């Protein structure tokens, strides 16, 4: 039934409204005194040393990729978690252990290959 989705719709509307309201509301509410110092990117009040548009080290991308893959594997945990008590029992445990073990091996490999080192 479509009405089941009414709360979700309301929620979405609220989120949207809040976001828009905050974005456009604040300038209206508060006074504004722009200055170059204020225009700078905010770094805890310290004057930025250089532009933010510099290249990141490749290691950053590397870690990001590794994170993606390991992170996404986690989705298999949800359906498993739902069923492990009711249906899968020990077999599920064994299965998931194998799965995790494989991930662990991969992690170990990455680690030993030094892909996690920053320099």
């Amino acid at each position, binding site marked *: *039934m*479509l009405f089941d989705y009414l709360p979700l719709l309301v929620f979405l509307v609220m989120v949207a409204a809040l976001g828009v309201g905050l974005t456009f509301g604040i300038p209206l509410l508060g006074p504004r005194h722009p200055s170059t110092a204020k225009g700078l990117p905010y770094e805890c009040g310290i004057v930025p040393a250089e532009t933010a548009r510099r290249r990141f080290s*490749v290691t950053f*991308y*590397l870690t990001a*990729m*590794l994170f*993606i*893959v390991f*992170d*996404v*594997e986690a*989705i*298999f945990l949800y*359906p498993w978690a739902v069923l492990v008590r009711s249906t899968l029992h020990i077999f599920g445990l064994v299965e998931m252990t194998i799965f995790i073990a494989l991930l662990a091996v991969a992690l170990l490999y990455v680690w030993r290959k030094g892909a996690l080192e920053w320099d």
Partner: protein
Amino acid sequence: MTGLFPGFLILSAAMFSVGAVGVLVRRNPLVVFMSIELMLNAANLALITYARYTHTMAGQVFALIVIAVAASEVVVGLALITGVYRSGHKLNLDELSEMSE
């Protein structure tokens, strides 16, 4: 639900087309890659929709697996792209055309 069913399919078809067109028109491999992911996710949306429509679980399981597979594909793809980028190529597919005929 049935009322929305065609809508979701049209949406997924649209996503797929957008992705395909993206692959065709964009030069930056990263963007092309994202377009490919868009196509896969369009397929995911279709799978979920059908799963709901046909009251079977297979579609959802399929979608989960696709997500995982897509992730690993992304990782490999990004690794390759960075590799190419570091080996001096600009991120422009038209420059990757030394082999032809």
